[in-house]
């Protein structure tokens, strides 16, 4: 059962190698989409090319479906997945400023890396700016600390706010994604350059949209939250390598790098 790391399948040292592999795939797919090109990225803000939105929404929907179905099948324990905590005000203000930085600089953090390695000097300068911006934040942190913690709600999910189960949320998200695809393709046809934009088969798109909404509908009916809650007690899954001494260490405890099998929980961005 996943997450494998949380069940002691491998240790912190190996997790860093895995990070390199996951990062490699991440950078690879971003570059394939053309996200190493600032002009392609910002075209979304001038209504010409919505590749950024299509990639983001599709990735979100695919991963969301995967997580919920994995949970229904008992392949992943979502209670052991790190949920990003909500801090309403810094997240809204941070998002607005990041949006301005995106259209001004032409990149977001990861895409700037992909662009910089392919020789884009503007992306390299953007990275320098990000390092400087992080430094400024750290220097001003004593003054910002109050706002940084403003609107803290803990790890709340969309399903916690109106108190409906995540299967229904998944259905709503999939309908929203299909609606967004339909809308942005209409806008693209009007403002975009049809020579550059990808042409997909209408029939494939309709079939994919139907499958997506159907997957959401199934989740809305089966209620993944209830299934996960029922499974939580009767199935105390044993980690396969439980013989190895598993030590869970919080990073702030300040342990020097030990040579033994070690699991470090240092999530957070």
């Amino acid at each position, binding site marked *: 059962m996943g997450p494998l790391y949380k069940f002691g399948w491998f240790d912190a040292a190996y997790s860093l190698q895995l990070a390199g592999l996951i990062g490699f795939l991440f950078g690879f*797919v971003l570059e394939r989409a053309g996200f190493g090109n600032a002009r392609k990225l910002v075209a979304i803000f001038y209504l010409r090319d919505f590749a950024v939105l299509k990639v983001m929404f599709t990735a979100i929907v695919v991963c969301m479906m995967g997580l919920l179905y994995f949970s229904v099948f008992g392949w992943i324990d979502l209670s052991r997945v790190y949920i990003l905590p909500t801090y309403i005000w810094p997240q809204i203000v941070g998002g607005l400023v990041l949006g301005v930085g995106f259209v001004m600089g032409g990149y977001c953090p990861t895409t700037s890396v992909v662009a910089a390695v392919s020789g884009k000097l503007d992306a390299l300068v953007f990275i320098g700016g990000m390092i400087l911006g992080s430094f400024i934040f750290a220097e001003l942190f004593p003054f910002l600390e109050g706002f940084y913690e403003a609107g803290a709600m803990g790890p709340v999910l969309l399903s916690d706010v109106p108190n409906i189960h995540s299967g229904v949320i998944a259905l709503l998200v999939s309908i929203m994604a299909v609606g967004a695809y339909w809308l942005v393709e209409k806008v693209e046809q009007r403002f975009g350059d049809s020579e550059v934009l990808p042409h997909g088969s209408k029939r494939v798109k309709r079939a994919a949209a139907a499958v997506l909404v159907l997957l959401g509908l199934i989740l809305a009916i089966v209620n993944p939250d209830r299934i996960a809650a029922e499974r939580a007690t009767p199935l105390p899954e044993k980690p396969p390598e439980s013989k190895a001494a598993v030590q869970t260490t919080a990073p702030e405890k300040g342990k020097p790098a030990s040579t033994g099998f070690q699991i470090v929980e240092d999530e957070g961005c």
Partner: protein
Amino acid sequence: MNQRYANPYVIGVLLGLVLLFSFYTMGRGLGSSSTFSRVAAAGLDLVAPDHAKKTAYFAEYLADGRSPLMAWLAFLTLGAGLGGLFSAFISRRIQGEVLRGPSIGVSARLWLALAGGVLSGFAARLARGCTSGQALTGASELAFGSWLFMFAIFAGAYATAYFFRKEWL
């Protein structure tokens, strides 16, 4: 530059699977902005170690005497660079250039890239993540604040795009 890029929906599915793989193996998603914060901490620690240790926000990175770059997300960002390099190499897109619209000069574009980077670096620290670590990862796990954050990015960019039209169009 070769501008024949892959279909965004196909890429979206692949990216979703990479993200799912990360959740399944590690129990966490992707991210990269904190790497730049860690580079800033490492740089400051090199130049002014006393000051770096007194900087509260960097203290966590510098605790226990290890390099602040010995972190999961730092290795992920390193991998992203290699993956991007490989993809650009096989499509012959490695080329030294400054990407900009036809009506802006190189130096103006670079200054805007620097300013945009400063804003992005600052904003990502404030929001505890960027487009990948906060928006992509958080939205997939249906985290409430991450959805707010994602819509705020689009709002901020669309609201100000008009003022940067000369940079791109």
